[in-house]
């Protein structure tokens, strides 16, 4: 069922009780968790925080921690699965689900109070209750009163009705579940909760801004929707005091990841949103980049310097230079209004940079996942020296460089293979990049890069090696920047059923699966046959 009043029905019920907080490994979930943690600290709510990577993690975490806990809050996980069925909880445990993964499972929507969805998304076309669940017992009773031929007629009539209803149900469910997509960022919902509870401060606003930026940087929502999602955030931004403390603003900024921590040339060669169009993997790519810099009016030596040591005049005219030079090379304009954090005695911090830093911390090469998660939470702090953020930014730079190298090598060695209606590429085991793109977030970044380079009209599948002879398979829809609705979730499930391969459908995002490397080609063949 849906929670109508977020403050009274959700937050006030949690006051004074122990809460189990289960959070998924992604940027939006980290931001939401930070906002919720600050709220819980203010009101002395005891909580247990467990980060989960997939559905099996969710199950183990619930089983280990569910003694004497009556309230469970799930952030960005559990919305798309039937919770009561999978977790088998006690009768009086209440689940609050704040998940931006859609489509929400029907059993969660029509649960009678045990599973409560904190946010109602109007864009989902949830089928009506009567179209899906049908009560057949009453009708059979009515039949016993009729006699003989009438009874036979009534039974035939009913069977026909039932068949028609089942067919309708089947089509409805198929239409509802075939695409997997994302709804409003959970951090925006959490921010609204903070505002209603009057605990709105710069830290909560910054976490909300980073969550919104994540959805637009990772292309989880169409760009128009992203602007609409950021609407409550903009309302709160106007209400904050712009004095000499940390505050968040919306300003036009270059959409180049990490450019303030890198050099201009470095940032330009690693921006997945428009660098692939420069075709740096081709031999003429480097000269194209130099031509772009020349058009912008930046001397090569300055562009190669760290941003902070660059000439101040050049720094000031970076935005206008980008805007004039990009159309000449038929590139999309890389500046757009984004969120920046202004702190006294500190250079401004872009939300986009924070997104990449958190991504790198969650999927770090050497840090274990739980440690990375805690570091990511502290990287969102607004006061003080932000050490975890700096660690995250260095890791993000390495990962972006690895993604670029991977894309270049795949494209130049023709590693992008054709299979039926889609393209696919495989990351070879043992390359230096294999360690860095092991997780779904960075592998997705690599897939998006390759899709932009080949003008993304076909869906792309990416595969990366995992330890123990398994590999990760990720599907990206065609034209991902306009239409992020992903059909690979349902497609993977069906292909797995048909080919009988032991696929692990563990990830909350259904377009990512794990399967044994030896059976990968078989699976791809089955998929080709399915989608042809």
């Amino acid at each position, binding site marked *: 069922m849906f929670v109508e009043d977020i403050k009274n029905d959700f937050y006030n019920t949690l006051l004074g009780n122990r809460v189990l907080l289960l959070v998924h490994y992604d940027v939006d979930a980290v931001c939401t968790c930070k906002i919720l943690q600050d709220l819980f600290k*203010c009101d002395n709510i005891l909580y247990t925080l467990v980060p989960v990577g997939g559905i099996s993690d969710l199950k183990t975490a619930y089983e280990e921690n569910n003694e004497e806990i009556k309230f469970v809050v799930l952030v960005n996980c559990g919305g798309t699965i039937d919770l009561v069925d999978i977790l088998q909880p006690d009768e009086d445990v209440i689940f609050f689900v704040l998940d931006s993964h859609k489509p929400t499972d029907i059993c969660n929507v029509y649960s009678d109070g045990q599973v409560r969805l904190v946010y109602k998304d109007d864009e989902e076309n949830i089928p009506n209750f009567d179209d899906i669940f049908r009560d057949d017992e009453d009708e059979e009773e009515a039949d016993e009163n009729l006699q003989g031929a009438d009874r036979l007629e009534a039974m035939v009539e009913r069977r026909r009705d039932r068949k028609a209803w089942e067919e309708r149900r089947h089509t409805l469910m198929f239409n509802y579940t075939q695409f997997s997509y994302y709804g409003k960022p959970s951090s925006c919902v959490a921010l609204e909760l903070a505002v209603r509870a009057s605990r709105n401060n710069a830290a909560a606003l910054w976490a909300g801004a980073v969550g919104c930026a994540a959805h637009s940087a990772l292309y989880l929502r169409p760009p128009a929707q992203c602007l609409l999602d950021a609407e409550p955030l903009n309302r709160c931004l106007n209400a904050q005091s712009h004095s000499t403390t940390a505050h968040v603003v919306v300003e036009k900024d270059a959409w180049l990841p990490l450019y303030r921590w890198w050099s201009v040339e470095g940032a330009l060669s690693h921006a997945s949103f428009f660098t692939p169009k420069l075709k740096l993997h081709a031999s003429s790519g480097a000269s194209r980049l130099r031509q772009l810099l020349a058009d912008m009016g930046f001397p090569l030596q300055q562009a190669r310097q760290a941003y902070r040591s660059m000439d101040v005049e050049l720094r000031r005219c970076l935005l206008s230079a980008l805007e004039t030079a990009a159309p000449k090379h038929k590139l999309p304009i890389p500046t757009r209004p984004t969120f920046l954090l202004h702190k006294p005695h500190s250079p401004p911090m872009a939300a986009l940079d924070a997104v990449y830093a958190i991504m790198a911390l969650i999927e770090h090469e050497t840090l274990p996942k739980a440690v990375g998660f805690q570091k990511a939470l502290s990287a969102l702090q607004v006061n003080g020296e932000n050490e975890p953020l700096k660690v995250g930014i260095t890791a993000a730079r390495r990962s972006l460089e690895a993604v670029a190298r991977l894309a270049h090598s795949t494209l130049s060695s023709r590693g992008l293979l054709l299979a039926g209606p889609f393209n696919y590429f495989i990351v070879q085991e043992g390359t230096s990049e294999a360690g860095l793109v092991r997780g779904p977030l960075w592998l997705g970044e690599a897939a998006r890069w390759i899709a932009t380079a080949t003008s993304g009209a076909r869906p792309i599948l990416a595969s990366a090696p995992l330890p123990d002879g398994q590999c990760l398979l990720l599907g990206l829809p065609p034209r991902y920047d306009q239409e992020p609705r992903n059909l690979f979730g349902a497609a993977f499930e069906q292909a797995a059923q048909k080919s009988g391969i032991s696929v692990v459908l563990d990830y909350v995002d259904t377009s990512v699966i794990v399967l044994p490397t030896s059976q990968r080609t078989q699976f791809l063949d089955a998929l080709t046959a399915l989608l042809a």
Partner: protein
Amino acid sequence: MDPYEIEFIGENRIVSIIPNFSYDKIYLICGEFGPFRAGLPMNVPLWLAVMLKQKQKCRIVAPDWMEVDNLENIKEEEKRSRFFTKMPNEHYMVEAKLILGAASEDIPNASEIKTIIKDIWDIRMSKLRTSMDALMKSGGSYGRLDHLTMMEINSVKPLLPAAMDELLRIQMMSKKTTPATLNSSTFSQSGTSQNT
């Protein structure tokens, strides 16, 4: 003594807050405070104010001395005078750090105040260092410094007694060896004392 201990002592000072909740009187070990009425200012210890502020349950009112003009005057005084001037508060550093850290949005011009207080601290510390230097050079017998706060005294605490000990040891050594040089005899007694 650690700086934390001085912070602990300094936290006991009374500041003014405006709570946003209502509650009865509370009876603490150090005294009773309250009743809390939302929107009405009241006096509480600094540690209680910072704790409430972190839970977003109050607003801290800036102390009287924490204003740009006031602090600018103090800074000018400090620069001009050769000796130390009286600080507005015995624990100005502790109060400034805690209030500006937890409640910087309640203080107008917080970042300028931070800079000015840091400047005052730097001026006083450099004066302290030169006066320590002069004390040691003059033989380390007597020095008088007025209007020093606890935190500043604590920063030279590890250095001063150790330096004076060394000075005394050197003086003792030189007193022992000077009679031996006056004695021109070649007795083994003086020889051994010279060798030690």
